[in-house]
């Protein structure tokens, strides 16, 4: 499987979740694990470009596919990805636990709707839970991310 542009062998244990494989085997701990049943959205990654829950996939299912995690959006030292930059500017995060999942969902949302309406923003982030910001600043960040991406 290709993770953030690098090829890796699939794990030997077919029962390994993709989220656990990313974190424990590949050391990509930016993908967070909250609920492990698809509700919280913290573990969202891009699978062949579309956001999916990595806790609801087995790692072996990613063989032959491309996975992008939060670490793959911008190289260390490089400018932030527009969605990361927008979350930074608009205070779209506090504790940061949910942030990688939000960012990956929003990358997917903007791929689908480059200029999302407020309703599309709400729908797009409705699958991610945040317990600190109250969502208002996250919504602002999504609109700002669309601006930055379209520049």
């Amino acid at each position, binding site marked *: 499987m290709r993770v953030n542009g690098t090829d890796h062998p699939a794990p030997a244990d077919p029962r390994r979740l993709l989220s656990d494989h990313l974190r424990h085997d590949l050391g990509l701990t930016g993908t967070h694990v909250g609920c492990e049943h698809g509700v919280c959205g913290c573990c969202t990654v891009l699978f062949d470009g579309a956001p*999916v829950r990595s*806790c609801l996939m*087995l790692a072996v299912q990613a063989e032959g596919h491309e996975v992008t995690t939060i670490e793959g959006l911008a190289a260390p030292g490089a400018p932030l990805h527009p969605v990361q930059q927008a979350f930074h500017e608009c205070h779209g995060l506090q504790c940061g636990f949910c942030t990688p999942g939000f960012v990956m969902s929003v990358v997917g949302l903007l791929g689908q709707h480059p200029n999302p309406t407020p309703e599309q923003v709400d729908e797009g982030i409705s699958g991610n839970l945040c317990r600190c910001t109250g969502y208002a600043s996250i919504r602002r960040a999504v609109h700002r991310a669309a601006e930055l991406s379209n520049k």
Partner: protein
Amino acid sequence: MLGSLEDAKVLAGGQSLVPLLNFRLARPAHLVDINRISSLDRIYEHDGGVAVQALARQADVEDSELVASVCPLLVLAVRLVAHRVIRNRGTVCGSLAHADPASELPAVLLALNGHVAVRSTRGARMIPAADFFKSVMETALTPDELLIEAWFPASTGKYAIAEESRRHGDFALAGGVRHGDRLALFGVAPTPVLADPKDPTRGLEPSGDLEATPEFRLHLVQVLCDRLFAA
């Protein structure tokens, strides 16, 4: 493989099955992942309706122009299934085979009087929606059979879907699907059930839980039915 393995489950989108595995609520001895089967992900016009194959993702159905023109009711229903990120992976056929009593798609198949096509090494058969859902998460599928595709008749005339859930994307406390004069309810019985729009709660004995009492579910059925048939 399904025919030769003892205690095997089919893994398609995994958005219902993997949570059960994570919680150790399901412990099948074998998983048969069908995701690498090519040409099982089509959505095509068939017999005046739409056929949705086993690996067609809910997001693909949601975005399909064909489904939007032939069976717009299905598009409305799919949008109520969880969230887009879940629908990117989840399949329509998987929702039907999983047969959660609170899920939308089984009720849509029932309201439309659709059917599913299943296959095993013994042969193929077609199962009408009315015979497919047997009990809570139980269907007429035998352990060696794979649900190949679901057929949704065109939604002609008046159609609508309404549900009440605590938050958008959550499982419904109660819901209803209207197609013409037909009404199918979900979340209020072990399977989706057909009901009389003039007396939708007759014979219903919904269960109660932390989210809703049986009385509240009956109340919701009446209110939702009124809304569905108001137009």
